[in-house]
């Protein structure tokens, strides 16, 4: 059956088995040697796709280590589509599980940030709304309104300052890399698209709680009550930063 043969060949090509299927002519160049050409070609294409998604990770560990990590990921989580722009979800977790990467404890967080940036960049453009939309609400409706974060928004809570690390690595800024303490602090990041660029903003604890509330669909009244005196400032800051995508005046 062709379907079974294709499953077996596919497993070999993706590195999930070393056993070549039966039924391939062997004339001294063995079936495994011949199938290895396809494995090499597939790994090269998929590793290149991952390196495009995770350029800072590749620079931090070098091409050889990156290729090893990529091969593990390809075998365990092969792509489900030829749309390779969307390939790499879960790569950070694979990196976190690689023993040899333990000496670079921030590597998985760098991968998480790069993945979030790639997803935000791929989003269809959406104009953020201005604070005028809020002012236009009838006062009695405002407490029940819900603000929706920009559709491209990803919120990340990381153990390591991956934003500073990525910037320094991609800028080849050795001085900045030497200065930073990668273990210094956890960071809370808002990653989103604005004017067709990806923005990575650090949020403090109060702003993080506020934005989390927005992402969970809390009403404006509830958010303002929780934020207290800082509510007006926090609210205005989200509009100014272009993080609000739409306003649901009915509170539905």
């Amino acid at each position, binding site marked *: 059956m062709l379907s079974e043969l*294709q*499953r077996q060949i596919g497993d070999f090509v993706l590195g999930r088995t070393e056993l070549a299927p039966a*039924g391939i*002519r062997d004339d001294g160049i063995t079936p495994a040697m011949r199938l290895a050409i396809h494995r090499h070609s*597939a790994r090269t294409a998929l590793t290149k796709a991952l390196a495009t998604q995770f350029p800072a990770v590749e620079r931090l560990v070098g091409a050889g280590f990156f290729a090893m990590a990529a091969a593990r990921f390809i075998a365990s989580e092969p792509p*489900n589509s030829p749309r390779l722009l969307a390939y790499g979800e879960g790569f950070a977790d694979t990196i976190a599980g690689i023993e040899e990467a333990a000496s670079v404890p921030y590597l998985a967080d760098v991968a998480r940030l790069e993945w979030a940036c790639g997803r935000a960049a791929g989003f269809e453009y959406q104009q953020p709304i201005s604070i005028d939309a809020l002012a236009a609400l009838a006062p009695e409706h405002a407490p029940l309104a819900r603000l929706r974060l920009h559709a491209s928004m990803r919120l990340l809570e990381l153990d390591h300052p991956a934003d500073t690390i990525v910037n320094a690595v991609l800028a080849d800024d050795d001085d900045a890399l030497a200065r930073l303490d990668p273990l210094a602090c956890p960071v809370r990041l808002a990653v989103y698209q604005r004017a067709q660029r990806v923005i990575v903003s650090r949020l403090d604890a109060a702003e993080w709680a506020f934005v989390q509330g927005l992402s969970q669909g809390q009403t404006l009244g509830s958010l303002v009550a929780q934020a207290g005196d800082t509510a007006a400032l926090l609210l205005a800051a989200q509009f100014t930063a272009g993080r609000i995508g739409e306003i649901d005046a009915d509170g539905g």
Partner: protein
Amino acid sequence: MPSGVGIGLHFAHHAAVLADPAAVAWVEIHPENYIGDRRRLRELARIRRDIPMSFDGVGLSLGSAGGICDRHLGDLAELVDQFEPVLISEHAAWCRSGNRFHADLLPLPLTEEALDIMCRNVERTQERLRRTILVENPSTYLEFIASKMSEPEFLTSLARRTGCKLLCDVNNIVVSCANHRLDPLAYLQALPAGAIAEIHIGGHAIESFGDGRSLRIDDHGSAPPDDVWALYDAAIARFGRLPTLLEWDNAVPALDVLLAVAASATNRAPAHVV
């Protein structure tokens, strides 16, 4: 139909092509490289305004026993509607099994079962795209004991049963025939001339195993070597000066080098070898 010799389009050449579109006869893209990439699709739309464009798919997996992925076919149909490519081609190969994509064009046993599957998938593709597609002969590195026909016989039956056209990749013929000790000219002669609608040329590598044995690898990493040019001369003698496309996907040179190699194809003379 595009005329002249086109080139495979690379992201790195977008700006140069846009700067001087008249220098390029036509371009071919792999749609999979663009699906979902809004920025590059915008660039591509600008290129398409000035230059004829063909699509050469590498992700449809026409040979998959499990059929074609609805989502990918839908994505492709959207691009076809938007860009109206002058030619649409895919490969007599497969790259998907179950829910896994394998990122390479993998070989089919040349059996009635595989032919039936290819026919079903080609028909479905042509219905969805509302276009006749071209199916390209792949480079192969292995043979299946179960195969019951030659590759030209397989492709001839496919074209007859589905009405599809064929893309004759002369580089792939040179590669496959060297790997399986077949005569490339005999392969060319066995193709149905009336069904051939496009020709690909390109370069390949040779991997030696240290004991005198070697395999040719279709890496598209260099200019066509002499034996590919010789077979191209025979191909244009047999099929006429069909739209021809230069593939160069690795170690891609500057645009002017690609255009110079493409121009040299324009100057080749038909060679009647049989």
